[in-house]
């Protein structure tokens, strides 16, 4: 264990109120800096690292199997995605292929995870807009899919479904039935929620026309996942690169063209229907066979590979390099949020500071951003540290001045 001398002084007059999960979107700490000219944001940067643990380096001193669990704990919302991308990469390097049944089970878990993640985000977005009832109801219904995942995998968050060369468990008939019943219920509810977010006038006031990203911008910024698809950029690895994990089942692209927050809500909700359909299709065509390959080497052949998986938030990118030993040489993880985060910073430039919070939530930031401390640099060069709450208040007051005229 390393010892670190305690810093003697607090670095600045930063007033930090770590606001807990009342804003579940923004759970993990990050530090945004927005330079403003009047009310217009002229520059934006972010300081992450409050939850930086050094996982990439950590992988280099753990063996291949241990790394599976370390990487799974990069993110508690899309844990399966990380495990999935990692085992795909390692299997490519080791030149083994998981049995078809194992691949199907992985996909089922991945899609169930997507369902839970989107429901989570729906609640979070609603909460951020101040619609707590929608938050409560969507999280109530989310428990359905959490129950399914728990009874299927044995844990509600870190599913540990994958092992190198296969999966840990089978899906039996009873579970299939349970999943199908759960999906029927969720589908009904999802229709309802789609109606709500498309029609509730007060809710739309907070989302329509906020944080608009054009298709051109989305392309240039390299955003991924639903954030890109809400701007009309057809980018979904399940369709683009089916070779890796979705080869047996076709997925339809869900696109919206408005590019605003409302579109991001709609894309995710419509994504859910697609997930339901895929899960049903997989369950009704479940291939037979083993769950794990007969022989998975402890030492992985030297070489390097790239594996990508469509996480609920977009493309997760893994670069894995092996030197032929029991431990990897280098693993590089690029989470989808990092890609999308850049878009937030670029998008907020030229926008009113008041719109920043909702834009940030709109990308479904997963690994980042709360403590929500913001530095505002005035044109005079004077720097002030604001909490997230202050930015929100600032925004509210700004609008008030606008509206009060």
């Amino acid at each position, binding site marked *: 264990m390393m010892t670190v001398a305690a*810093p003697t002084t607090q670095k600045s007059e930063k007033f930090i109120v770590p606001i807990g999960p009342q804003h579940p979107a923004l759970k993990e700490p990050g530090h945004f800096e927005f330079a403003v000219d009047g009310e217009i944001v002229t520059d934006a940067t972010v300081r992450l690292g409050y939850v930086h643990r*050094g996982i*990439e380096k950590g992988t280099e001193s753990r063996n291949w199997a241990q790394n599976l669990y370390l990487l799974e704990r990069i993110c508690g919302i899309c844990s399966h995605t990380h495990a999935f991308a990692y085992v795909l990469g390692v299997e490519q390097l080791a030149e083994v292929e998981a049995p078809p049944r194992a691949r199907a089970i992985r996909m089922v878990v991945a899609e169930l995870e997507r369902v839970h993640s989107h429901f989570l985000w729906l609640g979070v977005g609603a909460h951020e807009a101040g619609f707590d009832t929608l938050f409560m109801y969507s999280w109530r219904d989310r428990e359905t899919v959490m129950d399914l995942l728990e009874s299927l995998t044995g844990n509600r968050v870190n599913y540990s479904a994958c092992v190198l060369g296969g999966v840990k468990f089978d899906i039996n008939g009873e579970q299939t039935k349970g999943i199908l019943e759960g999906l029927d219920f969720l589908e009904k509810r999802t229709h309802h929620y789609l109606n709500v977010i498309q029609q509730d006038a007060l809710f739309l006031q907070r989302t329509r026309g906020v944080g608009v990203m054009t298709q051109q911008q989305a392309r240039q*910024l*390299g955003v991924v996942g639903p954030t890109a698809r809400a701007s009309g950029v057809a980018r979904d690895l399940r369709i683009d*690169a089916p070779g890796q994990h979705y080869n047996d089942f076709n997925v339809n692209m869900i696109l919206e063209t408005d590019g605003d927050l409302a579109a991001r809500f709609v894309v995710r909700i419509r994504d859910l229907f697609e997930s339901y359909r895929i899960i049903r299709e997989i369950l009704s065509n479940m291939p037979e066979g083993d769950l794990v390959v007969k022989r998975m080497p402890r030492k992985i052949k030297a070489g390097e590979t*790239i594996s990508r998986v469509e996480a609920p938030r977009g493309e997760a990118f893994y*670069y894995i390099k092996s030197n032929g030993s029991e431990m990897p040489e280098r693993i590089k993880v*690029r989470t989808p949020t990092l890609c999308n985060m*850049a878009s937030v910073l670029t998008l907020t430039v030229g926008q009113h500071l008041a719109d920043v919070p909702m834009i940030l939530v709109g990308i479904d930031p997963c690994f980042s951003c709360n403590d929500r401390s913001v530095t505002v640099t005035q044109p005079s060069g004077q720097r002030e540290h604001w909490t997230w709450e202050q930015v929100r208040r600032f925004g509210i007051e700004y609008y008030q001045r606008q509206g009060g005229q």
Partner: protein
Amino acid sequence: MDVRLETAVSLTKPWATETAEPAPYRLDVSLERENLLPVISALFAAEWGYLSAITGVDLGTAVGVVEVLYHFCEGPCIVTLRLRVPYDDAQIDSVCSIIPSASFFERELSEMLGITIVGTPNADRLFLPDDWPLGVYPLRKEYVMQG
């Protein structure tokens, strides 16, 4: 070969010192450091994919080189630009002038592997704590974790 990869081959051809296809849908292009910006401009001008990640791989103290990989993705295809950056002259040009969103990747690269990014708009630390000692780069092989 996928048609998109063929386009990429022709786009990068003028500067590539070596081209390889390590796996289906993948293209590795080795470059000299000074040619990075022209290649990226060419890819960007042709709207070929998007910058998916920048990976830095330390090849070890014996070699004394950090390999920097720029991954571009378009559909199933991945083009990787490979650059070799020696320890004693650890700097590289920023691509932020062409791809502004690369800033994150560059900040990460520079703090983790000690590569100076020339001309990057923001060289502040992104992940490492404020009290992290200067000149210590965690992803270098010479950095050994205690405990």
